[in-house]
């Protein structure tokens, strides 16, 4: 179990979290903390529970047991009406991008701000254009996702995750379906988000990717936290 030295500095706190899907146990007694503005990898083989963990963090799934706090919000006792508020504090990036095909890149990114209740069209336009500039998609603002390459789609997804200025960015296998150049570009953007103050949690099974960062790693196997070979857990 992680040592809880300074609760205020921790933005994510998991204590003995369990998730069952019927008879199947996806996560078992998982405990770990994430500090504010930390860059953290969660790794493990397929079926280890990485994606389930990400889903629990943004309340895509409810935990079956245990106790979890994300940015001061208690996930175990969270009502349906509170979920949008939690999700506005989190930007999520998926392996399959999850962009809305019938909306342009600009509209996909702007939707986050509209959903968060921003009314000023000029503010939305300004911020979305800045983000698209940052991710190198300004020239594709009016393009529809099906016309983009995988790397471009993922950069659009990163822009969408960052536009609401979330405290936490969760990336579930963000580079799994990308070529090395596109992966590198996406990771640079995640670094940029981290540099802007966001806490970044990335799940990946790519050891090479992890080795390129000086970041803490949480290793999962069959739904349990285990010590990663070659790395020491500091909690």
């Amino acid at each position, binding site marked *: 179990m992680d040592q809880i030295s300074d609760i205020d500095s921790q933005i994510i706190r998991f204590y003995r979290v369990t998730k069952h899907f019927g008879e199947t146990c996806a996560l078992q007694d998982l405990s770990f903390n994430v500090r504010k503005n930390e860059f953290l990898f969660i790794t493990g083989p397929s079926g280890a529970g990485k994606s389930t963990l990400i889903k629990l963090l943004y309340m895509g799934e409810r935990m079956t047991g245990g106790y979890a706090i994300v940015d001061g919000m208690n996930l175990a006792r969270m009502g349906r009406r509170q979920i949008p508020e939690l999700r506005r504090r*989190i930007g999520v990036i998926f392996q399959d991008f*999850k962009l809305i095909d019938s909306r342009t890149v600009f509209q996909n990114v702007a939707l986050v701000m509209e*959903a968060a209740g921003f*009314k000023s069209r000029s503010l939305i336009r300004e911020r979305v254009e800045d983000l698209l500039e940052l991710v190198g998609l300004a020239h594709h603002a009016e393009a529809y996702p099906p016309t983009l390459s995988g790397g471009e789609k993922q950069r659009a997804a990163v822009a969408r995750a960052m536009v609401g200025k979330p405290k936490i960015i969760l990336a579930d296998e963000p580079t799994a379906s990308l070529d090395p150049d596109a992966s590198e570009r996406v990771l640079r953007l995640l670094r940029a988000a981290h540099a802007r103050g966001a806490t970044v949690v990335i799940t990946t099974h790519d050891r090479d990717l992890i080795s390129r960062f000086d970041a803490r790693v949480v290793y999962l196997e069959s739904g349990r936290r285990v010590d990663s070979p070659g790395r020491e857990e500091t909690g």
Partner: protein
Amino acid sequence: MIDVFRRSLSDFLRHRFLHGVCLFTIALSVFIVSAFGLFFINAGSLMEAWQKGVRITAYLKPDVTRQQAVELSKSVKEYDGVDEVSYIPKKEGFAWLKKQLGPQSSLLSDLEGNPLPDALEIGPEENIKTADAVDRLAAKIGRQAEVADVEYAQEWLHRFRGIYNLFRVTAAVMAGLVFVAIMFIVANTIRLILYSRQEEIEITRIIGADEAFIKYPLYLEGVMLGLSGGLAGLALLYVVFSATVPKLSPGGLLPYFQITFLGPEIMLLILISSMLVGWLGCYISIRRFLRV
């Protein structure tokens, strides 16, 4: 609100095909129901027009003198609901009958004498609109000692009214059933729209949208579908009406009556109903769909 409307319109245009199917369904349903409405409203007006033209004929007993007949016509004229009374001596009545028969009037030449009695022809006031009021007036005239029999289009009017009332009840039940059927058709079509947008809705939720942000534009889309379907249905009915009714109009046969299109109040009611159907259909689908 403007933002919700903008998003609804944008979604409406983005999913043109399914919205088009739904709009067509509503338009067709509105067309059918409105056509029924148009028929019944005009049938009602037609009956009213006929009733206005109803005249009561009181046949007098053979022993009634001309003087008594004139006295009776004066007293009947004073009855409530009587507009005019004409005394028709049997000679005049026979001449009128001959004229009406035209070429067939030779049939009357075989008769021995004039079989017609003297009569009073009574025209009820225009405000006597119900069949019951005409019945009461005719019964009162029939009770006079000088009157042998009273005749008016009583049975015919009653039968027509009976059929009309039966149709009206049937139509009301059918309209109710059609309303429910349309609502479920719309609900299912909207559910198809929702299924086609399931991923989009899920993504919108993940990025932090609350239920209101997702639902309100969908409700508004339902209302817009209802309104546009209603307008299209009425427009279609008007086109069909304009193309066919001038050829069907009874015109000279019934000078009191002219087939008319639905009035503005009825059209407004139809549009409000179709918007309600759109909204309810949406409400049912969303409740089932977003519960998951």
